[in-house]
């Protein structure tokens, strides 16, 4: 085992490719994540996300072990992940098939 991970960045599920900041963190800070150093590219406020690995453009962003969006550009380990480099992958299904399915059953 290497050095202990910094508790200020936690992965909520082992499948996640982002960590969540448990405190306000400053750009340039170096933390240990998965036993290896990780440098922050920006100030990251409590509750915000940081890339745990390199993430390719178009890849899923995974948090809670679930897809929470899609990378809109390549994201490097340690970079802040937010509206500037990811987008929702959610299609409001209630306006589409699921609504038809529901309405079809109730009428």
């Amino acid at each position, binding site marked *: 085992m290497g050095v202990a991970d910094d508790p200020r960045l936690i992965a*909520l599920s082992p499948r996640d490719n982002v960590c969540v*900041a448990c405190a306000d963190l400053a750009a340039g800070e170096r933390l240990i994540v998965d036993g290896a150093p990780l440098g922050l590219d920006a100030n990251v406020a409590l509750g915000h996300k940081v890339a745990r690995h390199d993430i390719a453009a178009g890849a899923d962003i995974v948090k*809670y072990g679930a897809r929470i*969006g899609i990378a809109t550009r390549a994201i490097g380990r340690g970079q802040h992940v*937010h509206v500037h480099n990811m987008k929702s992958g959610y299609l409001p*299904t*209630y306006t589409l098939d*699921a609504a038809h399915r*529901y309405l079809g059953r109730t009428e």
Partner: protein
Amino acid sequence: MIGYLRPDGRKGVRDTILVVYLVECAHFVAREIASAFAPQKVQVIGFPGCYPNDYAFAMMRALCTHPNVGAVALVSLGCEGFDRGELGSAIAASGRPTTTLTIQETGGTRRTIETGRRWIAATLESLQATPRVPLAWADLIIGTICGGSDGTSGITANPAIGRCFDTLVRDGTACIFTEAGELVGCEDFMASRSPDPAVADEVYRCLSKAATYDHAMGHGSFAPGNAEGGLTTQEEKSMGAYAKSGDSAIMGVLRPCERPARGGLFLVDDIPEGAPVFGYPNVNDNAKLAELIACGAQILLFSTGRGSVVGSAIAPVVKICANPDTFERLGDDMDINAGAILSGTATLDQVGAQIRDAIADICRGAETKSEALGHQEFILSYKTYGALGPSCLART
């Protein structure tokens, strides 16, 4: 762990006497009857409306025959629409001591209060004989909601409750969650968690109802404040709420008053059927808690970031505080400090284990913070599940 054994074989963790008003006009008298006794032993619930409603009747029947309830005094004005005879019969058929006080027949406020208090004093004595039996994890139904959430809820308290649920499910406990409106955006993920395609279908149906209902009520959208707190997408926000459920497969979708048939994780569909009629699906947190109790939950886990102080009638509420600053300020009301995860002094698994220990302590008689303070919030409103309502909501 020790439970109170009921004639139907279900086990409670409390042996409460309920004083139940059947219309708002009987509420004051019911409250006065109960006020002579300790809030931990005698509690007030009721339905304020004068016009009958199948959902409200089914809720009242489920709550009055809940395993945490030892005896029930119904308080009727006399002319309201609620079917007191049928409710009284259902309670008597469950083997519980029960009485119905009709204010118009008993002779008004003062005489009804005196009669009610005499009945309760005598019934408290007789409840000493309620059999106490060993209680296993598989005897428990545990419910969860979140209220007064903030940016920390999805990082600390919610996933910690999820870790607790994972261990409970492995031990045969039925774990139930609700608030479909908060889950819109993770329907694909939830459906993928349902091993039975029919259950996956029910999940989609429930969440599409929630989305259309919220749209009709003009709320439910992703707010700008969420992005400031670090949440980027609708599905991310909803996964933060879903995190309370943990990693288990979803075994079924229940309507209010339907009990899980076995252990495992279940979604309670809190969204009414058909076109919106009576307003919001649930008007506040206690309306959600009441539905989980009606589904049989003996204990409730309440995640809060900004700091809710509520408890509930009938079932103990364990308050799990997500935010360490809130815990500092409202510590008297909080049972568990999940904010320790942010301070780096506890892990999600450790807080999950603390919650499980708190449940075990409650089942050995320990009071939650809200119980010790005397909280017993309760609310029940009109709702309709329409023609598609499950058989459990039918009157006969």
